[in-house]
């Protein structure tokens, strides 16, 4: 990546951050949630580029959120960096174990298996009285390196960290997708046998992607828990995972920015759908997805591609 585009991204990040901080409280809250979900979907998109759709990213989303909640409530650790580190470590360990089994499966079996694991977590959490059963429990306000901004500033702190994470992890993901192991994902999707006899290990490619996706989902869950100040088992429920797939389909898999933009649009769409039609808001979401699938099968990012193609044709 060139220094110029890095600088541009840095400025863009600052602009998003400034914009986010200037927004009214309820909007910046939704924006932070969207950043968190965007990170989860970014991980999902990495898997989808290898032809694997996980219906169980809620597992790691929930693990990340619960690790954050438990650390602040039971261990009195509020440093956001420590919390993130712990969430990532726990989810990577879980993914490394579950991945050994899951990464042998493809298509619907992969999707259903991944969903089954997240539902197991849901079942466990619902049974645990200590963790508030179906109600979940509250998450204390985070701090950063000894600086505790208090209840008012906490959401701004989480927003700033979330924007920083989205920009930096987005750049890393972009670099990853343009590296050899990133391309290997597409090789897996197109033809696994070919990848094997040309010397690439299909299992290794899928396993690494699965673990990266789990870490991203845990980060997303941590961000969500810290900004909303509450966690509950619903985060591991299959509808939450379905929502991530919904956002991924909305954005498309062509670029790392697509899931982030789609997550922001999704949150906005849901909020307005709920305001316009409190009882039938799901229907509005349904029609929106239907329209996207019918007119933009490769997601919203195909608009950008169409625009780029037009520009390229004009210059030649």
């Amino acid at each position: 990546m060139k220094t110029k585009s890095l600088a541009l991204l840095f400025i863009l990040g600052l602009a998003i951050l400034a914009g986010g901080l200037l927004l009214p409280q309820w909007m910046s809250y939704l924006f932070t949630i969207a950043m968190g979900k965007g990170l989860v979907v970014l991980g999902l998109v990495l898997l989808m580029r290898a032809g694997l759709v996980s219906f169980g990213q809620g597992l790691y989303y929930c693990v990340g959120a619960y690790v954050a909640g438990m650390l602040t409530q039971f261990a009195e650790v509020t440093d956001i960096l420590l919390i993130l580190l712990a969430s990532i470590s726990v989810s990577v360990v879980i993914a490394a174990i579950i991945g050994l089994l899951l990464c042998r499966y493809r298509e619907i079996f992969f999707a259903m298996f991944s969903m089954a694991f997240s539902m197991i977590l849901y079942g466990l959490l619902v049974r645990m009285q200590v963790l508030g059963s179906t109600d979940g429990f509250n998450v204390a306000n985070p701090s950063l390196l000894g600086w505790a901004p208090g209840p008012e500033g906490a959401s701004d702190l989480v927003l700033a960290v979330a924007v920083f994470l989205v920009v930096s992890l987005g750049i890393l993901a972009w670099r990853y997708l343009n590296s050899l192991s990133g391309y290997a994902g597409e090789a897996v999707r197109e033809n696994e046998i070919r990848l094997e006899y040309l010397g690439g290990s299909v299992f290794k490619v899928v396993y690494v992607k699965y673990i990266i996706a789990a870490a991203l989902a845990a980060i997303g869950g941590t961000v969500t828990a810290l900004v909303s100040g509450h966690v509950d088992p619903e985060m591991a429920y299959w509808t939450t995972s379905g929502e991530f797939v919904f956002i991924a389909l909305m954005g498309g898999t062509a670029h790392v920015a697509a899931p982030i933009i789609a997550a922001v649009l999704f949150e906005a769409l849901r909020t307005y759908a709920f305001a316009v039609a409190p009882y039938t808001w799901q229907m509005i979401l349904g029609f929106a997805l239907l329209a996207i699938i019918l007119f933009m099968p490769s997601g919203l990012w195909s608009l950008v591609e169409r625009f780029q193609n037009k520009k390229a044709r004009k210059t030649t």
Partner: protein
Amino acid sequence: MLELKNVTTEIAGTLILRDVTFSVEKGSMVGLIGRNGAGKTTSLRSIMGLLKPKSGQILINGTDMTKQGSFERAGMSIGYMPEDRRLVPDLTVEENIMAPAWACQLTSAEARLAWIYEMMPEVEAFSDRRALQLSGGQQKLVALARAMMTGTNLLLLDEPFEGVAPALSRRLASVLSTLKDEGLTVLLSESDQSHSADLVDEAFQIERGSVEPLASLT
């Protein structure tokens, strides 16, 4: 070099290879001759680890390959040319040839590419075309070139002459005979011996999944 010992392979419960035993000496070119459905492709796929044998051993330089991952073969300098060429349609010819070098992180890839182009100048001529723009026979040449990228130790060629125009197949045969002169070990399969009779040092006949030395080789 390559040794199959009592290899039995099943596909979805149907016995395809029955107790197959044969060996390929280092530096020799060996043909595996059999009709459609006899088990030629299954033999090569078993050697490549793309199908797991139910029983038996496949030894390459003394290593039991049935315990190795399929992808590890390219790293052991074994090249494979599948029957259906399986090029990546959107990549250029040169990128297709270089793909195994990238996957195995070969250091000598450029020199190897130059050697391949020297052997097959016609491939160099269309090296910047995309694979989907080539004819079937041309794709076959590219698939051979791709197998040669890693195949310094052993080359497995599945029906290299199948579906290739006579002029091209003569060209393929001359490339293969040069490979033989260079001391490569090659196992190739064919439905009859029309193209490979003059090339191979030894041939085996495969019939209903059983392999026997082909007697009438003159």
